[in-house]
């Protein structure tokens, strides 16, 4: 059974098995958009793991017993499941395939990778709310990668996730995992291929801050906020944030550490016009590829200044503004300007 596939080989159709994130990255790669290399674990790796460890019944039991409002019971169930998961072994075929892919995609011996959950089906829409967006950064070595994968799986049974699913009466969950070569980002952030506030489709809204993406995604900093024209790459509005903290690779070589940003650097605009222009370019390509507005996580590599996309997903939150219906004709519209509406 194939549990692991290179991101390069995935397409949208693979989302049901590998999760939305992995499939989306595959699509981006196919569209020629710069994405760090990586591989994906299928949901069947997770189900195989649960089956071999004999955890299925235990999960069902724990979940069946909780009622949505009972926080203590939920907490207990979450602890018990995740303990059981963390002590269970990863099936050999899964571990072997992870090892193969891990060693194959980088030249250095134990390359740092990011291990992230890749939610499946309707879960993917709710994943953010349900606290299933776990990210393990700067993970090195096959053993640690496998541990991080197991931690991702376990996050399906975090207290909020259980309570969320209990409330919505969702079925047994499943999850894919994305493993990607880590970018040591000098600057990273998120961008929308439209203005999510006004709905303007000609704008790219960019949030950016120093270091790895965690700070922006986790809301730990007020990022620099740019509104940029897709048409000319001009910055239409900007608000520089006080970027007080940043995440950088742990000097010890494993994991990421949070540190204070020096006062001089906090208020400095973290993107130059060239970086903004390349973000706009990528935003347009990503949007063009998917044919819908996208919410894109990106990073600027510290050594090469290369812009890399680490995730893209559809924007679901654009306000549906009450738009005036399109005018019947130019003349009709002009008449209305003069308060002489026809009909």
């Amino acid at each position: 059974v194939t549990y692991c596939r290179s991101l390069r080989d995935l397409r949208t159709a693979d989302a049901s098995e590998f999760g939305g994130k992995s499939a989306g990255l595959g699509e981006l790669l196919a569209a020629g958009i710069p994405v760090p290399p990586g591989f994906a674990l299928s949901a069947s790796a997770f189900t195989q793991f649960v089956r071999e460890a004999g955890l299925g019944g235990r999960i069902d039991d724990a979940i069946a017993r909780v009622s949505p409002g009972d926080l203590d019971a939920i907490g207990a169930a979450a602890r018990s499941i995740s303990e059981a998961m963390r002590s269970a072994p990863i099936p050999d075929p899964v571990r072997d395939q992870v090892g193969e892919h891990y060693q194959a995609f980088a030249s250095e011996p134990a390359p740092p990778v990011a291990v992230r959950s890749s939610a499946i089906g309707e879960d993917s829409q709710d994943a953010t709310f349900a606290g299933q967006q776990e990210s393990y950064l700067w993970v090195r070595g096959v053993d640690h990668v496998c541990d991080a994968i197991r931690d991702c799986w376990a996050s399906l049974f975090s207290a909020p996730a259980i309570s969320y699913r209990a409330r919505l009466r969702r079925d047994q969950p499943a999850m894919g995992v994305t493993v990607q070569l880590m970018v040591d980002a000098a600057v990273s952030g998120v961008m929308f291929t439209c203005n999510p506030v006004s709905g303007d489709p000609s704008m790219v809204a960019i949030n950016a801050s120093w270091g790895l993406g965690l700070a922006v995604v986790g809301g730990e900093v007020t990022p620099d906020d740019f509104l940029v024209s897709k048409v000319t790459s001009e910055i239409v509005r900007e608000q520089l944030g006080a970027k007080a903290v940043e995440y950088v690779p742990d000097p010890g070589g494993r994991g990421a550490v949070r540190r204070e940003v020096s006062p001089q650097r906090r208020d400095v605009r973290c993107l130059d016009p060239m970086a903004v222009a390349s973000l706009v370019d990528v935003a347009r390509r990503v949007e063009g590829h998917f044919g819908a507005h996208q919410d894109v996580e990106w990073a600027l590599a510290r050594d090469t200044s290369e812009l890399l996309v680490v995730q893209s997903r559809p924007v679901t939150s654009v306000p549906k503004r009450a738009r005036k219906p399109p005018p019947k004709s130019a003349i009709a519209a002009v008449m209305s300007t003069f308060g002489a509406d026809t009909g």
Partner: protein
Amino acid sequence: MYPYYALFDERRRETDENRFWFWNSMHFPVPMPAFDAICIDSPYQAVGAWQNRVFAVPPAMGIDYRCVNGYIYISGNPVTDPAKIAERAEFFQKRAGYYYENWTELYAKWRAKMEALIAELGELKVPSLPEYEPDEIAFEHDRNTAFYEVLDSYGRALRLGDLMWQHHFEFLLLGYGAYATFADFCKSNLPDVPDQHVAQMVAGIDVLLFKPDAELRRLARRAIDTGVDGAFVEGRTPDEINAELAQTDAGRAWLDDLEQVKDPWFNMATGDGLYHYYHSWLDDPRIPYASLIGHVAALRAGEQIDRPTEDIQRERDRLADEYASLLPRELQAPFHELLGLSRTVFPYVEEHKFFCDYWFLTRWWNKVREFGALLAHHRFLEDAEDLFQLTRHEVATALDELVLTWATGGEALGPKHWPPIVARRKQILERLAGWTPPPALGVTPEAITDPMTIMLWGVTTERVHDWARQQEGGTELNGAPASPGVVEGAARVVKSVHEIADVRDGEILVCSITSPAWAPIFSKITAAVTDIGGVMSHAAIVCREYGLPSVVGTGRATAQIHTGDRIRVDGSAGVVTLLGGRT
């Protein structure tokens, strides 16, 4: 000095106090000389006639004005009765519809009409008053005596002016309205689109207004090509430059070339044209010569000075295509249709200024000056220019007495009557110039709804509330972001055209409003700030072309900023900051 109806008056206090009046500093930045008040009456007669009586714009009649200490405040007359609005809408739809449908054809006719009017003005003679009438009067029976000819000529001069203003406004409302509709469409469907992109998509490429400077660039190149560029030294007067050119064959050939293109292209006003002292380049060649000196220096330094029309055209089409493609499919066709209509009407919007405000008006002032010369010749005035201190009706009165006493041979009172009045008025104007009028009077409305006020003056609800906030004090001025970029530097406040020559390299221009005739100084300045105007204003257009940051419509920049102040202009955000300190 001003007509009775131009003032706030006890007898209509109740109505006037409850209206919203804003200072029309766009057109009348300095106190009005008595004669120049004709440029308030005629335009508001004309705009009201078209807007209210011809097209019957449903919610808005004409614009009233009041003169306060020589400054002009205006206020629109709304139509509020729904039945009346509906009645007017029928007129408007039919009549405006006709204009839009036949725009290009009607505009061509308009241009012909304007050129004929300008020619007629050129032919208008201002007779002198001879000791003896010539023989023809006696022997040929179809001639009139000079008393009649003087009065007739003055009457005709005024009528030609009225006609010009009538033509001026024939297309104006509809032209601006079509553009405003496109801009609104963009704003509601692309809410963050910079105003300048909207303007860029519509603006013409081969616009008449760019032609004068294009001719100067060509002449600068010719000066270098024929080796006479040495004459163009910074600090020299046009006469000094001409004198040097006249010494060589090549120089004389260059002067001939200049002579060929002067008319019509030097019929540019040195200001926005509504005051008598805005001469044309023909009258005052300092501006075009300053520009020539700049172009020559730039060419010598190897700079590219040509307006990159192909790039501008390409960019304009690219913007339009890109924005269209970003819109939802069902809005793409209306976008193109509205853009198309805007582009159809825009030649008028851009070119009427050249025909009316510059070409006609500068010549018309000169025609009126001839009556000043006639009055001065007969000592009714000390100087021909003094005529402008009298109202047009007073001038008619003075001419009446002049031809009367010329005819009778009696003693004229005029030489004793008019000069003291003129002297007094000059003093008054000087005093009034030192006062800065508040941007608005009366009741600040919750919202500005009059489409004309918004369209023609850029006076929006937002702007009015900014004004209210900014009343004195504060180190920040808000305006419309007209051309992007941020620049810091020393301010140069230019309140009248006479101060243009003072502008130094690297300064930030702060003015009430600029006119196309100021174009040459845009190669010297690093940014521009104006009191009034929107993103379609001249300063905005030129700044975008030159890539200079610009904030327009700040309301009080010329009042709060002084020459030498260090300021920051953020043309992207529309904010001007006084940084403190002077250079």
